[in-house]
């Protein structure tokens, strides 16, 4: 645990222990704010920033905090960072801030952040803790954006609609109309659509994992079989 390699930290955060797809943490914002790619990206970035900052801080102070008060201290740290992120978003991405609304302050209650502080950052070096925050945050953001893309295409036939809210006026040209004259598919925009979409992503991940597992087994099994065949031939 103490000396987990950076490569493993990255792999766990992005895939094998993904916050959204494997730990299934932070589902509330994941399901609520994933109606479009831009919303998903905005909240994903805010969560990522909070996660890196809180992981780093928790790791820096890990030797001073007594175990009895560590949870309240972690919550304090996380709440402070989230409030700061909220203020910064209000100042620099005002429109996006208005859209994401209550879900920015609710980042405090995203279990991923407290979970990583408690389970990983408080037991490792600041560098590894920050890397873990980055990997977990990117993994979470990836799921948010994937779900956002899925729901936006199915729900309103576009991708990156309202990108100007985040990137300024040049973002307008990023909007892609995937399906022209699309009537819209309400279910995809509604909460049930979020659940179904997440279910599909989970299934997809499981399929990919199984394929990888099969291939690995085939590779390890292959030399074995080759030897047997050769043995059979000489006998």
């Amino acid at each position, binding site marked *: 645990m103490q000396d987990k390699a950076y490569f493993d930290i990255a792999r766990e955060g992005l895939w094998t222990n993904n916050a959204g797809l494997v730990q299934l943490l932070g589902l509330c914002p994941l399901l609520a704010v994933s109606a479009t790619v831009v919303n998903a990206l905005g909240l994903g970035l805010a969560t990522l920033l909070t996660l890196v900052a809180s992981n780093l801080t928790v790791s820096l102070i890990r030797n001073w905090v*007594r175990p009895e*008060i560590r949870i*309240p201290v972690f919550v*304090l740290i996380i709440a*402070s960072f989230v409030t700061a992120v909220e203020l910064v978003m209000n100042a620099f991405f*005002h429109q996006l801030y208005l859209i994401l609304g209550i879900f920015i302050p609710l980042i405090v209650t995203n279990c991923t952040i407290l979970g990583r502080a408690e389970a990983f950052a408080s037991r490792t070096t600041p560098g590894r803790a920050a890397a873990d925050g980055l990997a977990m945050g990117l993994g979470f953001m990836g799921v948010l954006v994937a779900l956002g893309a899925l729901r936006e295409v199915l729900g309103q036939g576009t991708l990156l609609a309202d990108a100007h809210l985040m990137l300024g006026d040049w973002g307008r040209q990023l909007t892609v109309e995937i399906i022209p004259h699309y009537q819209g598919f309400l279910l995809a925009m509604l909460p049930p659509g979020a659940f179904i979409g997440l279910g599909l992503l989970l299934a997809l991940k499981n399929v990919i994992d199984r394929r990888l597992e099969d291939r690995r087994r085939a590779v390890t099994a292959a030399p074995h079989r080759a030897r047997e065949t050769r043995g059979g031939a000489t006998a």
Partner: protein
Amino acid sequence: MKAPTIREMALAGGLLMGFAVAGTAIVAFVHQRTAERIAANEAAATRALIHEIVPAGSYDNDVVTDTVTITAPEALGSDDPLPVYRARRDGQPVAAVMTVVAPDGYNGAIKLLVGVRDNGTVAGVRVVRHQETPGLGDGIEAARSDWITQFRGRSLQRPQPRQWRVAKDGGTFDQLTGATITSRAVVRAVREALVYFRSHRQALFARKRTD
């Protein structure tokens, strides 16, 4: 695990307090650095919305600063004083842009700007702030659908106040698909604003500006 001594407890409490102070300091610092920008953002957003409601050429005063605040919880849906922006041309009233709260949105209060021309017709309605369902209730934003533009040119004569309801309730106005409660709240808030304007028109324009 042995029970902690008084000294250990005090130490833990002190440490906790230290972190509370540090956390507050971070927030206070960021707040101080962003407050001006946030206020400017909000003023700019208000200005842009007013310009959408009342075309820039139709008045000649500084509409964003020519304001009075009114407190009318019954009619305007909020216990707080709400600003009214007044547009004039050659000193004559052109329109009043009233801040109105629809307290009964699907997910809390919806803050609106309702522009009323001097003759009592709606110049336009825009949403300032809301927390309605993304993909459904957020259709009240002008950027997402043109639903909110159907109020333009309406008045308490057209349609009659009894018809100031969504179509589902037998009224004149379309509701947003899947967001009837949201639509209902906005229609009612606009109607109440018009009723208030009808009985307070002269006072609204005559009152000295509040700074």
